């Protein structure tokens, strides 16, 4: 999507960090919340509180539809995918548990796990991936032991876009009675998702990327029967006479006044995605990815990191240019061409170590639903230009 930054047109290729622009219904929903809703959902009993509660509920229902969840009761909202991952990880493990993850994880997975390992609470195994960012699922299965309680894995890398073998790992976990938590930050809204056929036990999502919601929205889906201890306890608007935190979903995992205005926006975003069709979004983004990969491969002195085939990835493409630091490339793209992307480590040092791009990282282009083919071509032309001038 082209937009204006002052008088310079911009090309936004940073949808992997957060989507831009947001569809008009999202902006309208947020604005309308302040004028028509505005009460505290689930707290008071007056009409504005009820209207706000209803909107909050409908956000849960829409999210449940998007994920193919059997009941919206098991969708709990959080501030972001990071909070959802922390909730899931700390909520299911007990002292002495063994936890397995991949070497392509974001710090939202890696940091809570490293912390728990350093505290002596868990034993952690990080399964190495290839230098292209691929996980051999057999390697992960070999790491499972009778003490393994949990496997945590990203659905798609935020650095290379690589889709991880979620169904295979889900099967292996189910056969062994191991819980499987998937980080769907890069996939919810970008890929047709069905938590039941995926076979996962817990799925963390963010609202502000491919679901087009505002920042400060995200959540966790928890399979029926999976016990999760709350991360925070407090007011829920339910069982107010009781000083003990409730045991029922979703209240058990949601305490304190929610980001109701953000969730009003998320609801509109999810409905937008459902109405556009996730499959249609996927096909468009896959075409953008293929176009980018094809164009980038032809540029002398450019190295793609990961990026095998558009079919096996989400629209996140990482590359480096010989002799130029990614930070320099990012600066040139922004200043000279109005192209906005993300450079560096993308909060995923483990993934960059795996790819051999640590510590300077990569340049990451992440087109989205609103990106046009013309913008992809312009971005490719800009990269060609920068590479040519470097060589010249």
């Amino acid at each position, binding site marked *: 999507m082209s937009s204006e930054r002052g008088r310079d047109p911009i090309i936004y290729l940073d949808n992997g960090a957060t989507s831009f622009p947001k569809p008009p219904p999202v902006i309208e929903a947020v604005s309308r919340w302040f004028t028509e809703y505005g009460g505290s959902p689930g*707290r008071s009993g007056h009409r504005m509180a009820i209207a706000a509660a209803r909107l909050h509920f409908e956000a849960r229902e829409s999210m449940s539809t998007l994920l193919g969840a059997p009941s919206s009761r098991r969708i709990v909202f959080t501030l972001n995918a990071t909070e959802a991952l922390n909730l899931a990880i700390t909520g299911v493990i007990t002292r002495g548990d063994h936890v397995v993850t991949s070497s392509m994880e974001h710090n939202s997975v890696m940091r809570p796990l490293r912390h728990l390992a350093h505290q002596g609470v868990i034993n952690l195994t990080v399964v190495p991936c290839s230098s292209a960012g691929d996980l051999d699922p057999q390697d992960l299965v070999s790491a499972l032991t009778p003490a393994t309680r949990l496997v945590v894995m990203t659905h798609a890398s935020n650095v290379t876009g690589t889709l991880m073998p979620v169904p295979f790992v889900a099967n292996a976990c189910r056969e062994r009675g191991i819980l499987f938590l998937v980080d769907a930050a890069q996939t919810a809204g970008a890929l047709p998702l069905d938590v039941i056929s995926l076979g996962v036990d817990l799925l963390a999502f963010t609202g502000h990327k491919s679901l087009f919601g505002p920042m400060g929205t995200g959540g966790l889906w928890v399979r029926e029967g999976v016990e999760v201890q709350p991360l925070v306890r407090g007011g829920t608007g339910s*069982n107010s006479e009781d000083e003990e935190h409730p045991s029922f979903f979703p*209240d058990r995992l949601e305490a304190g006044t929610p980001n109701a205005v953000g969730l009003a926006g998320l609801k509109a975003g999810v409905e937008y995605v459902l109405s556009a069709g996730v499959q249609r979004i996927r096909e468009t983004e896959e075409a953008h990815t293929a176009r980018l990969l094809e164009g980038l491969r032809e540029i002398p002195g450019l190295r793609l990191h990961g990026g095998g085939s558009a079919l096996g990835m989400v629209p996140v493409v990482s590359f480096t240019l010989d002799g130029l630091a990614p930070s320099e490339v990012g600066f040139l793209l922004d200043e000279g061409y109005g192209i906005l992307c993300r450079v560096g480590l993308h909060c995923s040092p483990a993934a960059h170590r795996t790819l051999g791009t640590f510590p300077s990282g990569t340049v990451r282009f992440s087109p989205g639903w609103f990106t046009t083919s013309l913008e992809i071509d312009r971005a490719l032309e800009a990269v060609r230009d920068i590479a040519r001038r470097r060589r010249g």
Partner: protein
Amino acid sequence: MCVGTFHTTYAVLKAEKLLLGIGVPVSMIPVPRRISSNCGIAIRFDCSLLETVRRAIEPVLEDLEGLYRPDGDEYRMY
């Protein structure tokens, strides 16, 4: 009018949606103090539909606190 109370706001709103979905007129009210000191909201509906309501809210039955019929100044659990 009869009243239904639930342990969670989620369940009240799910019940409302289920009932509206099958054409049962339902309104939302603050939980009457005579029923519970809970600070939440409750569903209100015509008592002639008590049995229909009970069947329709099956998916949130685990969260149902009670269905109440007015009895003078009090409410009696159905």
